[in-house]
């Protein structure tokens, strides 16, 4: 059993639902108890879909368990087929139905429907949402794409080249975008536009908005753009092995990665990338270069999300904005190796976990200036009072915005710059708070004023403010105890404690930790004001 306050991913059948809902004429019959229809509102509310997801649930209740749940499942498949007339169907079980073992695949097969019926085996107690989506996409593509076993991958590739007309554009598919994917709608628009401006024809985008017959056309393209490896890597690998279609490995998030992606694609399409590279306005890079951004240098950032977004964010943070990456992690165990590799660049140890509490503990230990994470890291950041921006699913309704807001491509880089900088206190305010911490309006404890919502102004006397600061410290101490099991508070003498309170809140945590570490390393049993400044001199700002 795992204690979870928040879970990074849903169960695997949610992944299957994301594939079914992405597509236009595929139906999903899910053996599940009453109540599992909550998943519909992920799509209708969070994703604001105009349509109900194409999912029929058996919604069995306790009284059905005594009876024939297998028959209930068969009836559901039949009536779903009659009513919705899909071109293909997927069938499977949710976590509770997995326990009663009705074998949805076998039962559906026995009905001999005149359409392809693809059974899904999604082990709910071991695997999670992205795995479920990836697996479902793979099985659908395998189930719907005709393969001539007598033809090798290389022959397939040669046939494609041979059948090419003179002057015909190179072609590709975009694989991976799904319903409920973080910013997938706009990423597809951005990347499709980019590919087309390079003179590449995009044949099939899948699974998002693809039909069953679209999937059958996938092998006709020259190569695949695997946009979201969490969803599309398995399928892309199979397509490569079977049809000799190469696929892209670079995720075009950030200006540098986008340019590298353009070069990668150009090579696969046999094009010259230099014209398109020269024509781009790199606004995000200029913004980061402009002097207003100097104060962003070495801001300590903790990054967590799915593997692709976390790796990409770290690169942008370090190389394009000038942050210092102090932590990098992912909940995507399937891509743990990639994240570990990436973490080496920043000299940090990758945090591979799906345990929210472990992430929370890590953030508390590191006291970063900024957290780039998921909706879950927003809870952590609120608890610890750290600025935060969202870079990856899971996300909530506010991260399915009406406006155009890709993460990928050049416009994506602009969006990233604005989004990540916004929660930080702006330069002038940061300077003034360092100088004068007792201002009644712009207090060191307050949130950045450009975020516009502080507590109402009170004319507090300095004494109150000092005692507030003491309360503040007490609460961080409690946290420290919970997380570290020790009681570092005993180390501090009163004057040093008070001096620490004069350090602005957004660097105070780091100062506290550095000083304690310094004291421990130098065998100092009591931290004085002098120790505080010794540590500061030792570690630098």
């Amino acid at each position, binding site marked *: *059993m795992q204690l979870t306050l928040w879970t990074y991913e849903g*169960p695997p059948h949610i992944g299957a639902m994301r594939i079914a809902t992405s597509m236009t004429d595929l139906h999903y019959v899910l053996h599940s108890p009453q109540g599992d229809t*909550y998943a*519909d509102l992920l799509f*209708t509310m969070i994703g604001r879909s105009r*349509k109900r997801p194409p999912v029929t649930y058996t919604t069995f209740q306790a009284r059905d368990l005594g009876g024939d749940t297998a028959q209930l499942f068969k009836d559901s498949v039949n009536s779903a087929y009659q009513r919705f007339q899909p071109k293909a169907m997927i069938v499977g079980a949710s976590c509770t139905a997995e326990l009663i073992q009705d074998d949805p695949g076998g039962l559906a097969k026995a009905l001999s429907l005149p359409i392809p019926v693809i059974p899904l085996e999604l082990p709910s107690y071991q695997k999670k949402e992205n795995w479920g989506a990836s697996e479902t996409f793979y099985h659908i593509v395998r189930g719907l794409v005709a393969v001539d076993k007598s033809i090798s991958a290389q022959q397939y590739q040669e046939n494609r080249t041979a059948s090419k007309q003179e002057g015909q554009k190179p072609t590709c598919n975009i694989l991976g975008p799904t319903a409920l994917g973080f910013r997938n709608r706009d990423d597809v628009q951005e990347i499709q536009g980019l590919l087309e401006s390079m003179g590449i024809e995009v044949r099939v985008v899948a699974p998002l908005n693809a039909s069953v017959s679209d999937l059958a056309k996938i092998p006709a393209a020259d190569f695949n753009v695997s946009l979201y490896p969490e969803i599309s890597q398995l399928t892309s690998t199979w397509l490569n092995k079977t049809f000799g279609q190469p696929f892209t490995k670079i995720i075009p998030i950030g200006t540098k990665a986008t340019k590298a992606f353009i070069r990668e694609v150009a090579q696969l399409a046999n094009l010259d990338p230099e014209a398109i590279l020269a024509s781009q306005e790199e606004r995000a890079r200029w913004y980061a270069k402009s002097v207003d951004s100097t104060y962003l240098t070495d801001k300590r950032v903790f990054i967590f999300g799915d593997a692709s977004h976390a790796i990409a964010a770290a690169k942008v943070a370090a190389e394009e904005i000038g942050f210092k990456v102090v932590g990098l992690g992912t909940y995507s165990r399937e891509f743990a190796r990639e994240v570990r590799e990436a973490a080496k660049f920043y000299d940090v140890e990758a945090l591979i976990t799906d345990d929210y509490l472990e992430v929370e503990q890590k953030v508390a230990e590191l006291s970063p200036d900024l957290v780039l994470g998921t909706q879950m890291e927003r809870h952590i950041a*609120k608890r610890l009072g750290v600025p935060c921006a969202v870079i990856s699913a899971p996300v909530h309704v506010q991260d399915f915005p009406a406006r155009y807001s890709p993460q990928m491509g050049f416009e994506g880089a602009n969006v990233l710059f604005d989004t990540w900088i916004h929660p930080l206190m702006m330069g002038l305010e940061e300077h003034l708070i360092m100088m004068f911490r007792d201002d009644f309006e712009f207090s060191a404890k307050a949130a950045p004023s450009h975020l516009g919502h502080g507590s109402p102004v009170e004319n507090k006397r300095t004494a109150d403010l000092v005692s507030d600061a003491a309360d503040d410290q007490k609460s961080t101490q409690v946290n420290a105890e919970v997380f570290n099991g020790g009681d570092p508070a005993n180390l501090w003498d009163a004057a040093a404690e008070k001096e620490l309170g004069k350090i602005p809140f957004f660097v105070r945590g780091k100062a506290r930790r550095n000083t304690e570490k310094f004291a421990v390393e130098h065998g100092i049993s009591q931290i004085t004001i002098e120790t505080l400044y010794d540590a500061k001199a030792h570690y630098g700002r």
Partner: protein
Amino acid sequence: MNAIVDLPKDEISRTGKNIPIYKERGQREVFCGLTGIIWLHRKIQDAFFLVVGSRTCAHLVQSAAGVMIFAEPRFATAIIDDRDLAGIADAHEELDRVVKALLTRRPDIKMLFLVGSCPSEVIKLDLSRAAQRLNKEFLNHCRILSYSGSGIETTFTQGEDACLASLVNEIPKQVATQEKNLLIVGCLPDVVEDQFQRLFTELGIENVTFFPPKNSQQKIEIHANTQYLLAQPFLAETARLIEERGAKRISAPFPFGVEGTTAWLKAAANQWGISSDRFNEVTQARIERAKKSLERYVPMLENKSISFFPDSQLEIPLARFLSQECGMKVLEIGTPYLHKQHLEAELELLPENSRIVEGQDVEKQLDRCRSDKPDIVVCGLGLANPLEAEGITTKWSIELVFSPVHGYEQAADLAELFARPLNRSMRLAA
């Protein structure tokens, strides 16, 4: 009204007024009882809700509540994994470990609910035994209770019923007779509770307790001299256990709207022998004020037709309020479960041509809805946007559970909840 498509033909029972109650079975588009946690954790402020279930359960709760950013949520899930299922890990030992970790993290928690789910029920993990065992360990520090919020057993608000029932179960059955008291049963918003408290005090009913209490330490007395009023229509099991302790239910309509509230208060006043003069004196000004504020919304609702999809069991009282006090035409009232005794007084007040459907086959119900073309449809969030996209105005039903809607001062607010989408679709169409 157009011809009714495919109304269930068998299993029809009738109310006292001869209104047919159709029973329907099929796909149900409803929440499970775990969702009750979303409001219960705010009501009982020192309680924590630990779901014992799968990742699906955790995902449900966070999808519903996760839009709020919590520094420290008062609910969590102990996710069963394959080691627990294979018997490699002893599920009870695992649960003990998780509970200990949780209570160490949150020493301020005084009451912990172990909430059962479909997976924990199917594998027959005995949470009541676990609660007993853990209670011994955390004696004088934290009370540990259990109830089931599983989808196979409970629908949405029935989760509250199961939770409150577990609280009643803890109250000892008393033999000695005590002073007469009035118990108001069902989770009410704080402001509504305070209003009712003032009304009862002014009427001269002294000994009034609200259940559930805001704080787990508050003692609740139930005995042979207790009379109780249900504030919510979905409390079948809670009521049964209260009656086991000798208390008597005061039959009344539910306190929605002016008429409902008056009848509800009157039923209690009669039991306490309050004179009509006194009753009128206390209620008259409030009735007039409520009616006056209701007048603003009645023209928007009058003669508009409405259908309810099953969700919370509030459907019948709300349909009564909307037809009786707002002049709406009720086409279909879907309800997940119908407790005939608790709703007796409500059913008497419904118009005779009402069509009540207990249970659900969502596709068929959607067919009926499309053919009925109601001016407004009350339904869950899984259906609301898709129906709006079809041009059907909706009122999402969950809000009715999350808003202060009981009592005089909220009568107009309740009407407004239905007038708002109508007003909005007119405004945006223009």
